[in-house]
């Protein structure tokens, strides 16, 4: 369990008078310094003379849109790739570039976005991958290994059996195990790349408690995230990159999110609910008492042209409901009525034919054909439209796709570009184009902007609204509450497989949604709020 007792709270809450001001920040001991890092890729200058420093025991945010150069910079730091110019100084000593092992042993720990653990091995063995403590003849000493792993797990606030298989623990637990692994290498600078991308908001708090704890022990953390709202609650300073150029470092207490966003994108972004004057009319979908192994007794309606948000923690059953409606997963019980007609889709093909679309949360694994060109990805759900006498009419497909590419402002050199070479935002737009072309009546969009940069995010919001204006009914599933608040006309909340509430956009606030997500009824929450 994470320690959240009063002492640590006091240490880490930052009342106004105690906050870190600019002068103090400058006085802090530098542990890591980037000096004029330049990295050239064919045709692009990925990094153009990046210089900034990280202090000991600091949480240093690193932000920028996709393609701004954050990952490249971190890869250079971790010894994965070589820069053309510049140097990095860690604790007074210059880092030798291009040597991952040297970087690790000099105290740089990476926790990558994608999980790096092996599911069929024990937690302890994963922590000590390749460095398991051994007795004579290099035999793995399980007892020592487990004992040391238990101690490391304790340091990250996990009370787990070190001999348990990694595949039996949850996403947040795996993430914490990864951090334990970095700590086992005696990391003094920890790079967290999008640590909250796959965990829920409450789990994020657990992670933040740990980050504050590590920080108190003098470990510096470079924190990369697309979720800007997290920065103010966890970072001391934040550095901004844009198109490979360093935009500046700001002390978090001196800066507003709007200013950071302006630095990142060079323009203001309106993140507000768009009142497009939608009126409830024409119920298109009725779901009654839907139950499966992952959820039970869920009922809701969907109206024409409505955007319905579904909120909940990971594992609340949101995606499972979508998959059940879409015929990809079976459901045990319940009624689904589409345009007044009882339906029960047993396979996605039937659902698609009936006018449903599902845009997956995991675009790489379940959405895109990464090795295929943009055009093939867009038409993959509409092949019959472009088929004459059993042959695909490429010219027709290209013409149609060009329209979508320019309409959605998909940034790709050509229609023949392989989708894996596009940025996250553009990949997501390719998926949107696929379903836009399909012209579904009901579109379920699962995590519409996961791993997508701010600029593309707002474009995607606009396209979703446009679709709704054109009469498509949309269900948006998201772990980001602000996103739901911006998009949804109505928000339904799930917790542990049950529907715990439904709020209209006028009533919905982040706080109320959070409580419902955690399975706490609103009245109780109100009472609790009063005593705080």
């Amino acid at each position, binding site marked *: 369990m*994470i320690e959240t007792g009063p002492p640590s709270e006091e240490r880490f809450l930052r009342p106004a008078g105690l906050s870190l001001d600019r002068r103090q920040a400058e006085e802090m001991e530098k542990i890591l310094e980037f000096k004029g890092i330049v990295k050239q890729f064919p045709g692009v200058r990925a990094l153009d003379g990046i210089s900034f420093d990280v202090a000991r025991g600091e949480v240093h945010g690193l932000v920028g849109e996709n393609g701004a150069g954050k990952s490249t910079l971190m890869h250079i730091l971790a010894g994965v790739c070589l820069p053309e110019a510049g140097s990095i100084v860690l604790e007074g000593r210059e880092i030798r570039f291009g040597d991952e092992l040297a970087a690790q042993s000099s105290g740089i720990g990476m926790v990558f976005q994608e999980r790096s653990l092996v599911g069929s091995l024990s937690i302890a063995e994963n922590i000590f991958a390749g460095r398991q403590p*051994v007795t004579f003849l290099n035999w793995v000493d399980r007892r020592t290994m487990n004992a040391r792993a238990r101690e490391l797990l304790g340091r990250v606030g996990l009370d787990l059996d070190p001999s348990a298989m990694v595949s039996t623990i949850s996403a947040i637990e795996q993430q914490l195990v990864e951090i334990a692994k970095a700590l086992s290498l005696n990391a003094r600078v920890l790079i967290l790349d999008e640590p909250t991308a796959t965990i829920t908001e*409450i789990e994020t708090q657990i992670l933040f408690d740990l980050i504050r704890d590590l920080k108190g022990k003098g470990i510096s953390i470079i924190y990369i995230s697309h979720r800007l709202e997290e920065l103010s609650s966890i970072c001391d300073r934040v550095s901004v990159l844009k198109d490979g150029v360093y935009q500046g470092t700001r002390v978090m207490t001196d800066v507003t999110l709007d200013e950071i966003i302006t630095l990142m994108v060079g323009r203001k972004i309106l993140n507000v609910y768009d009142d497009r004057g939608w009126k409830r009319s024409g119920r298109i979908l009725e779901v009654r008492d839907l139950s499966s192994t992952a959820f039970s007794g869920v009922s809701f309606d969907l109206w024409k042209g409505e955007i319905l948000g579904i909120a909940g923690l990971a594992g609340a059953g949101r995606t499972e409901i979508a998959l059940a409606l879409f015929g990809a997963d079976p459901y045990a019980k319940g009624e689904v009525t589409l345009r007044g007609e009882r339906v029960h889709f047993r396979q996605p093909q039937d659902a698609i034919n009936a006018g449903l679309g599902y845009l997956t949360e995991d675009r790489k694994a379940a959405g895109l054909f990464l090795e295929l060109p943009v055009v093939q990805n867009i038409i993959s759900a509409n092949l019959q439209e472009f088929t004459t006498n059993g042959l695909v009419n490429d010219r027709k497909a290209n013409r149609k796709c060009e329209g979508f590419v320019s309409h959605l402002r998909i940034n790709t050199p050509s229609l023949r570009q392989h989708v894996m070479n596009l940025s996250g935002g553009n990949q997501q737009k390719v998926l949107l184009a696929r379903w836009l072309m399909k012209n579904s009546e009901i579109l379920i969009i699962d995590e519409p902007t996961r791993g997508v940069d701010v600029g593309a995010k707002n474009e995607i919001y606009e396209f979703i609204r446009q679709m709704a204006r054109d009469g498509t009914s949309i269900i948006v599933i998201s772990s980001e509450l602000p996103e739901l608040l911006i998009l949804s006309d109505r928000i339904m909340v799930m917790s542990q497989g049950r529907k715990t509430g439904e709020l209209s956009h006028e009533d919905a606030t982040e706080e109320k949604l959070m409580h419902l997500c955690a399975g706490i009824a609103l009245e109780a929450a109100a009472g609790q709020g009063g005593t705080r």
Partner: protein
Amino acid sequence: MSSSRRFSDSLVNALINTRALSLLVLIALLAFVMSVAFGGIFFSWSNLSGIMLNLVSEAILAVGMMYLIVSGVIDLSIGASLALGGAIAGICLKGSVIFGITINPQPVPIAVLWGLVASCIGGLLNGLLVARVGVNSLIATLAMSKIIGGAALYIGGSEIANLPESFTVLSQTKVLGFFMPVYDMAAIVIVAGILLAKMRYFRRFYFIGGNIRSARLSGINVTGTLTVMFTIMGLLAGLAGIIFAARMGNASGNTLPNIELNVITAAIIGGGSLSGGKGNVAGAFMGVIFINLIKTSMVIAGIDIYWQPIIVGAILIGAVVIDIVLQERYRASINLRKLQSVRRRTLGHQA
């Protein structure tokens, strides 16, 4: 509540992880049924000894194959390596002229050594192709199986007969009711099994098969380890070939054709997964025994020989399907646990 869940978790765990145990139960059941039905024919020392002797080659190869499968790679050239090892040893024993070089008859240890060296070189080449050049292991070893197989045929021809007694004695001696190869096999299986389970170097295989990128980032020398692993596979194949040649008293360029597919079948039935990261030597060994026991039982029961491959194929599919079903049920149980753990943390956090 949590303790009962832990228990059911560990029960599922046990079912999934101890394929060797469940196979052992099946083997015991089958043996029991056969003994009741056919009594003395089946339940005799000579039958047991015969069954064990017949599966020696497959079992030795299955050990190496399991190493590879755990690491997420595969080797289709082991049948050819086996033939090459036997052929080279045979040629060295008898003396011959190959590639224009006259080879005088060599003493047994030298001949055995050359056989092993030859098949190690084959394995090493596999390893270099896969680990250093980056060729997919299926393709690399498929190509190498042609090359090694061709070399074995060229060297060994259709048969190198009448190998000297000083050599055949290695496999034709009977000790305590079993021929020597059975002991060789037992030693290899036990040692290899312990190494994979206990030794740090061999534990690397699981990381490489489970997540090759993360293995690299964890400081594991993936290239070197894979190269060594393929070389070990070659060594084991050569060893199996020499033991087999000594048992038969002759060697040839195409001993035991298609044995690699039988070995892969056994390894998968024994709990390996072609996506890597799981499996152990005991499982592979039990897989070999299980398949061979089924085949022998069918012969004893007088079932038409053509049924054999059909049944073996069905068992392979059955094993994989059971795996899928178990994994699914297992995942569902984790999902359940995940919800609970989130809740626990939530409440703890708010307190």
